[in-house]
């Protein structure tokens, strides 16, 4: 099993958070704390998921919650690179790709949204 690990590059305005390995329910609580800390006091958080192996539903929910929090506090949560194909497929099958931007992100593209307009 390839446990989740992460790294954070902190700046004054932005933070770059990179996750690796398996993002499952075991690490969902930890991911929540990492994102909460990253958003705290910064306008933009860039999330890097290109090296993750698994993204399960509890973790997808955490990223949606982070998006919602960022939007509500006039901040930005940006998915900075393409997701691995396996993760993309999971998101697609689970209905997290939608035709329009979701309500949590206003008119900005949601990190979980591949197509921004139907």
């Amino acid at each position, binding site marked *: 099993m390839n446990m989740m690990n992460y790294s954070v590059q902190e700046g004054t305005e932005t933070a770059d958070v990179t996750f690796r390995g398996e993002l499952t329910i075991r690490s969902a*609580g930890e991911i929540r704390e990492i994102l909460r800390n990253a958003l705290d006091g910064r306008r933009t958080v860039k999330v890097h998921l290109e090296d993750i192996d698994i993204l399960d*539903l509890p973790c997808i929910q955490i990223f949606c919650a982070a998006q919602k929090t960022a939007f509500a506090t006039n901040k930005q949560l940006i998915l900075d690179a393409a997701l691995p194909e396996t993760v993309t497929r999971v998101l697609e099958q689970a*209905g997290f790709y939608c035709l329009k931007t979701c309500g949590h992100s206003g008119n900005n593209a949601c990190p979980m949204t591949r197509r921004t307009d139907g």
Partner: protein
Amino acid sequence: MNKTVDAQSEIYKEEARELLVVLEDSLLQLEGSPDDTELIGQIFRALHTIKGSGSMFGFDRIAAFTHEVETFFDRVRNREIHVSKEIIDYTLKAKDYIKLLLEAPTTDEAPCEQELETLIGYFNRLVSEHKATKTQNPSSNASTTILSTQGASLSNTPVGLLTYRIRFSPAAGIFLTGTNPLFLLEELHALGECRIIAQRNAIPSLEEINPEQCYVEWDFILTTDKGIDAIRDVFIFVEDSAETRIETIGDPVDEEGYKKVGEILVERGDIKGEDLKKALDEQRHIGDILVDKGVVARDRVVSALAEQEQIKEVREKKAREEAALSIRVAAGKLDKLVDLVGELVTVQAHLSQKANSQIDPELVVIAEEVERLTGELRDNTMSIRMVPIGSTFGRFTRLVRDLSKELGKEIVMTTEGAETELDKTVIERLSDPLVHLIRNSIDHGIELPAQRESLGKTRKGLIQLSARHVGAQVHIEITDDGAGLDGTRIREKAIEKGLIAPDIEISNRELFALIFAPGFSTAKTVSNISGRGVGMDVVRRTIDALRGQIGIESEKGIGTTITLRLPLTLAIIEGLLVEVDKDYYVLPLSSVEECIELDHTKDTGREEHRFVNLRGHPVPYIRLRERFDIAGDVPDVEQIVVTDSGGNKIGFAVDQVIGEHQTVIKTLSRVYKNADSVSGATILGDGTVALILDVSKLSQVSRSEGSI
């Protein structure tokens, strides 16, 4: 009316007739399962198409009348009016009236205006009664009524392609039970074309979220032919930790477009009717307005849009498939094709004969190849004319229902082998004889419910129609569990009519065959259904004309089975080729029982009465040489082809039996219209014409002339 309009009208009429058959069939099925939403949907769609196309092709009376019935059935579809026997009765009458309008000349006044008024009055009354009930009970809001399939059949039988709307709401603690909802989604994907929209609205902020709780629910738009049970099976293990709502939404009928986003949201219960009305007053995309107003979450709108898109795609795909799967061809063109193939078969036979008489191996190979291809072409051409008998069977459900009601009887009709295929012409001509036989079964066969009970039978009588292929024939059986034929009474009546001598002993088979004699009836009373004795001889004549035979098996008090044995096609005949002098004749193989020799050098038969001794039984025979005035002497040894015609054996004396012969039938020109005993002709490989004999007619003519 110009030719194009004529052709279009004919296409409409043809389609409308098919739809009326579907309509009647669905109504009769609905009577047995009044909650079946799929059947209700089928009925509504049939009405909708009849109306829509009628209006397009100028059948305004049909469009106007069907509109009334459709409006009424829309209420039934929305579960606002419940299906009753009375509703089925009236809708069947409406179907009959549409048929009447369809066949009536468009220039005439509307036929049976009184019937029209009665029907429209009935449907309008039910609709207005419903409206009144709705006003008293505002909670029954039509716009929020949806076609739930909760009460639908639990059958696992695959149904047609349907689209379902599924909302899956897992309990918050589902992760703690070890269930991964994403696996369920994979299973749904495997069932068919599926769109999934995750509803994320309930996901809280990072501060509030509990990572071990599920906040998402899903909307699925699934198009599948696997049936609702297959969908339920996917969710079977999460029944206690999730709520699942499954609704049937397609195959929608509105050609102008599927439901609007607002309608879908109201139907799903995501918004209220009044919210929709308010939003409609603004001139923007309805989804955007509703989201901006905070009436509905964006994901819900996205889901409704996905539903629209899926239905559109499914409909387009279906239209493409239907267009590719079948084309409508005029029957006349098919007949012409069969004629041409017949010509080709003849030319091919000629070629084969020539090739075999030449010493040219290359020519023989070519002839064999042409023979193979011609055979394939012939079989394929014939198969195009084949249609399943099911549609004909379907018509009798109504007949049984109406007649049994009229006579106070309780009858169930079952069918078997509806998929059995027969030549289109055979099926068309078979309808009337079958109607007659079924009417007889209902009127004379099946007893009244009380009488059946007193005899230890079930109250409900049974009529079974079955069809199956037996070699090159199709056997159709009409079986009832009624009173059976009364052999004694038939015998008495036959003696009274002079059909048999009082002292003659005949088998049950021969005795029962007498009911096909003209004017023969044992019925004590004549009803408007049967009993005049004018039908069974017509049945016999029609079946004879189809080169078929009828058999009867019956046991008093137990029931009767009438078997019709018919050729698969009228275009090809399996015959026995015989020769008299230099002329050739074909006898339908289905009538032939055996061939025996008639040796005049030691003949002990009664030559003057034309009888031959067949294992101790005298069998009358007709000498074709004399029948057709063929010159020349009778050979010392003749061949007698013994045939069976309606239970009677009769022989045909010929010079030589050549053998079995399968050939394409050529109809005779009008010059030969009085040649009763010949049903057609065929051309042999060397170009010689062989006449196809009508065994039944030949024996009838000979009997009436007293020559046998």
